[in-house]
C-alpha cells in the first residue's frame, strides 16, 4: 500500500486478505480458537514466500492496493467478527452499500471508456470533489454516522499525504474488491446478520 514502506504494504495486504476470507468463508460458525487459527493461516499464506516471492506480491498483482476506506472497513469487519467490537451502526452499513454502489456506477463505466467523459479525471487535484466529500461527511456527522465520517476523512488525509502510489483521490476512496465485499454483506443475508448482531 504505502510505496515507501514495504512492511506497511504487507500489513495492509494481510488485513485485506483476512477480511476477504472472513467475508467469503463461514468462519463465524467456528469457535474462537478456530477463528484465530484461520487468521494465522491466512496471514502466513500472505507473508510467506511461494516460488521466490511473498504471497502478497501475487495478491497485490491482481488486486492492486486497497483503498484507504476499504482498509478501514476491513479492520472494522475483522474487529467486529473476531472481537465483537462494533465500530459502526447497522444503518451505516446500509448507507455504505448504497454509496459504494452509486460511486461504482458513476466511476467504472465512464473510466473504462463508455463515453468521451472520463469520471476518473475528477480525482486529480480537484477542490470540488473535496468540497462534495466534505458535505457528504457533514451529513454523516449530522446523522451520527461517525465511522463513515472518520473513514472518509482518513482517506482524504491519506490522499493529502500521498500515502498510496496514486495521486488520484478516487483510489483512496474506492476499489473494485471493496465494492464486492460491501455488496456481499447485502447479497448474502447470513453475512448481514453478522453485522446486525
Amino acid at each position: 500500500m504505502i510505496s515507501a514502506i514495504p512492511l506497511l504494504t504487507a500489513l495492509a495486504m494481510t488485513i485485506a486478505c483476512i477480511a476477504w476470507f472472513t467475508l467469503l468463508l463461514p468462519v463465524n460458525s467456528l469457535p474462537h480458537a478456530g477463528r484465530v487459527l484461520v487468521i494465522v493461516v491466512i496471514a502466513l499464506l500472505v507473508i510467506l514466500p511461494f516460488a521466490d516471492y511473498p504471497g502478497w506480491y501475487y495478491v497485490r498483482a491482481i488486486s492492486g492496493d486497497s483503498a484507504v476506506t476499504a482498509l478501514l472497513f476491513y479492520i472494522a469487519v475483522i474487529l467486529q467478527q473476531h472481537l465483537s467490537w462494533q465500530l459502526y451502526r447497522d444503518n451505516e452499513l446500509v448507507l455504505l452499500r448504497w454509496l459504494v454502489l452509486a460511486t461504482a456506477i458513476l466511476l467504472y463505466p465512464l473510466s473504462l471508456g463508455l463515453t468521451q467523459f472520463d469520471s476518473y479525471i475528477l480525482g486529480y487535484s480537484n477542490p470540488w470533489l473535496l468540497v462534495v466529500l466534505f458535505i457528504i461527511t457533514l451529513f454523516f456527522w449530522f446523522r451520527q454516522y461517525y465511522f463513515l465520517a472518520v473513514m472518509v476523512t482518513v482517506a482524504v488525509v491519506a490522499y493529502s499525504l500521498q500515502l498510496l502510489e496514486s495521486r488520484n483521490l478516487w483510489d483512496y476512496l474506492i476499489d473494485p474488491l471493496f465494492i464486492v465485499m460491501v455488496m456481499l454483506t447485502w447479497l448474502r443475508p447470513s453475512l448481514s446478520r453478522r453485522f446486525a448482531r
Partner: protein
Amino acid sequence: MTAIRFGVLLVMISGFTLALSTLPATRESAFIIPEYRATGQGNDPVLEAAFISESLTTEVHSATAVELNNGDIRVFWYGGTREGSKDSSIYSRVLNRVDNSWSDIQEVMTRQLAIRDTRRYIRKLGNPVAVVKGNELWLFFVSASPGGWATSSVNLSVSTDSGYTWGPVRRLISSPFLNISTLVRDAPLAVGNGDVILPAYHELIGKFAELLQLDSAGNVTRKYRISHGREAIQPVLLPVDPNNAIVFMRNTSAAHPGKIWFSRSEDSLSDWAGLDPLTLPNPDAAVTVVQLHAEDELLMVFNNHARERDDISMAYRSDSGAAWQLIHQFETRAGSEKEHNPFSYPFLLHTRDGDFHLFYTWKKQHIKHVYFNRAALLEMRAAAGPGS
C-alpha cells in the same frame, strides 16, 4: 457522547482543511515544438538496412528509439523465448552517430527487477518507450500479471547516465479498475513545465486512446481522453503548437475497420475532435509518424494493407490539406511465404540533424533498422512522382 461528536467534527474539519491546503496546483503543459536541420548527414542519398537484435532471443518485438543528448540513438525492444514468455526482458543498444557503430546489447530490464521494485508479481514485460528529459532518460514499459496484454500496467524507470544504469522501477497508477489495462507503444514528449505527456491506451472492455501527464517525479497527475468505445489504440502524438496536438491511431473498430484513425485537439488536450479515418489502410496495426520541417509536413510508416501486416511502407504528406502519397516500400511479403503478419510495429525517429532511423519487427525474429538521410527521402519523393 458530546465529546465524541465534536471530536469527530474537529477531525473532519482538520482533515479536509489539510487536504485542500495541500492540493497540488493543476499543471499546465506546453509542448516544445522540435526543430530539425534541413540537411541531414550528407548530400548523397543513403539508405541502409541491418538487423540489430542479433538473435539474442528467439522472438523480439516492439522496438522504439530515442535520440540522446549527444546525438547517439538508443533503441529498446523486448524479447524472449516467445512473446509474453516469462523469460522476456527489455533489451537496448546504442548507435554511436560519430562512427555509426552499435554498442553491445544490454538487458536493461528484467521481470525479476520489476517484481522486486514494484512488489507485485509480474508475468511478462513488453512495449518499451523512452524520452529524454533534461539529463534523465525515462523508460516506460508495460507489464502484465494475470491474463494477457489487455491487463497490463505501465512502469517507469529513470536513468541518469543515458541508459547504462537504471533506477528503481515504479508502477504508474492510471486506472481505478485494479489499475489494469493501460499500455504504451509510442514516444512520450517532454513538455515545457518539466512534465511528460505519455501517449497510452486501454484494451480491456474499452479500446481507446488517452494521454497521461506525469510530473517531474513521475506521478500521473492528469489524464486526457482522446477517444472512447472500442475504436482506436496506440496513439502517435505530434505537437502542432504549444497547446495542441494531432494523433494517429491504430484502428481496432469492428464497425469501421481498415483505415488509420486521426484526431486533433481543439484548444487544449482536454478537448479532442472525433475520430477521422485517413485514406491510408490499417490492418489493426501500429503506425509511426514524424514531423518534417513544418508541423503539418509528415512522414508515416505503416502496413499498407487493410487486413494483413504484409509490408512496411512509407507515405508523405506535404501539409494538412494535401493527400497522403505512398513514396516507398521497405518490405513486402513474397507470395510463397507463409509467415503470418511478418512485418509490424514500425517506429520512425527523426533526429535533430535531419536524418531518419526506422525500426520494426521482422518476422518476430529480428529488429530491423533502416537508416535513410534527407537526400534519400527527397529521392523517394521524386521517384514517387508529382505531388510528393
